[in-house]
């Protein structure tokens, strides 16, 4: 799997968020995206997931464009910004509902994902009763449960206790060994330095390798 970003540009209401971004992501690597708040990291990740469309430029997954019209790359598991789940359903039921769309994750994989993020004992709690950290963990669980080739995590460690952060980082390193592409963003550079092979820095719409 190879993700190639070519001359990517994104603007909203005449404000350029990303300008001429050229990046490459390869198998078996963990990539970090760093920059201050509002630097365009989340927008870039949404473009990678197909949630937003580029103003110009392309994103190629193994030489195939997915982010065109209303398609989406089918081998991406993502947590973008705040986790999005039904407030009146339990954590487990929410994951089961999402898993029923693609039908690639069974009950064991869902439970395994919740175990990785230390959320198994809270699986039957209603989502709107979760703390911020628990919501974030559930968001990570839904990104990893389907065993996708590309894992995209936007500020994944927000609100999560150290012991769980360590466990999740260990898991991400395991995914790297399995040959997956992991892309995570954070405004805390230490989190990225610990596990990332490459870090890209976002500033004023431009991206440079750190």
């Amino acid at each position, binding site marked *: 799997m190879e993700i190639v970003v070519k001359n990517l540009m994104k603007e909203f209401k005449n404000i350029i968020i990303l300008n001429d971004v050229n990046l490459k992501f390869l198998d078996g690597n963990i990539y970090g995206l760093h920059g201050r708040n509002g630097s365009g990291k989340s927008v870039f990740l*949404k473009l990678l*997931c*197909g*949630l*937003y*469309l580029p103003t110009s430029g392309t994103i190629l997954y193994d030489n195939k464009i997915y982010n065109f019209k*209303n*398609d*989406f790359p*089918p081998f*991406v*598991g*993502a947590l*973008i*910004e*705040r*986790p*999005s*789940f*039904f*407030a*009146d359903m339990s954590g487990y039921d929410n994951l089961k509902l*999402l898993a029923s*769309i*693609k039908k690639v994750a069974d009950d064991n994989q869902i439970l395994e994902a919740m175990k990785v993020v230390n959320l198994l004992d809270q699986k039957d709690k209603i989502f709107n009763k979760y703390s911020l950290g628990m919501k974030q963990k559930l968001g990570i669980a*839904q990104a990893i449960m389907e065993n996708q080739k590309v894992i995209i995590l936007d500020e994944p460690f927000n609100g999560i206790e150290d012991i769980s952060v360590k466990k999740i980082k260990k898991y991400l390193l395991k995914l790297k060994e399995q040959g997956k592409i992991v892309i995570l963003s954070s405004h805390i550079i230490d989190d990225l330095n610990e596990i990332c092979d490459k870090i890209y820095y976002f500033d004023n719409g431009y991206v440079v390798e750190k």
Partner: protein
Amino acid sequence: MKKVFRKNLLVIIFLLLGFVVAGQIFFINNKNITSEIKIIEKTKKYCINNIENITQDEAKQSCEKIMNNDYVIQSQNFYVKFASSYLDVIGYFNIVASLIIFIVSIYKVVNVFKDRVVISVLEREKYSHFIRKLIFKMYRYCWFWVAIMLLIFGVCMINSTFDSETLINSGMSWKKSLMDNVPMFIFLYLLNILIFTIFYLNIALIAIRKQHNYFLAVIKSFLIIIGIEIFLEIVVQSIFFGKILGNYDAGLVFNIMNLFSFNVDEYSHGLVSLFSFNCICLLISYLVMYMAYHNKEKLIIDCEKNN
């Protein structure tokens, strides 16, 4: 079972109300029949005592018929029962028919936007598939008013006659040729309701595109219906057809809130006008829905603003 009951609580409550309404109609129909029988008995006694004094031919003929038990209880006729049900009970639901549909249908659908679940879904599914599922989810109670009216038709059919020939000055608002075919009448009546219900649900989908709060979405949907109705009555009926074309009656078909009236007699619009209007409304609503939902990115951005 408990889960199914909880998930569909609102529609179950309104269906139970439908049963109550059907029960009320049953008692009203029986009361009308009993009243008519009493009147006939009174008239019979009067005729027996006063037949020699009656000079008018028509009145004398009526008396002779009653005395020979050669009369038909009008209230026992299916169409009379149904018309009476409309005037006494069902007609009052015209104004809230769309509101009830909004209340039962919008809840589960709007949460997809309100809780921003659409973002998690669109990471896994094509946008066109998501929209198709959204529409079918909104349509899942489109049978609601059809079911209620089917129940009411059933109640009106109990111990009824179906002969349209014997209706005397009934003031029925339906063409005789249509009344002669009861299954066709019921089918077309229910089809009209179904088409308008789907139109209402399309309006709801348009309203929830921007309004992700359940209560506000219900109110907004209802206000849109009222707004369209006001436009049709004032601009189309009164001004265009009434004042400009001088034919107010021709404009009566332009009505989206008379869900249960089904006006297809010789004096008002016919079946073709009625179904042409409701199909055009449906088509326009699909067009507006397409304009509201065709941009995936804009939908995501609007949902991201929710807390």
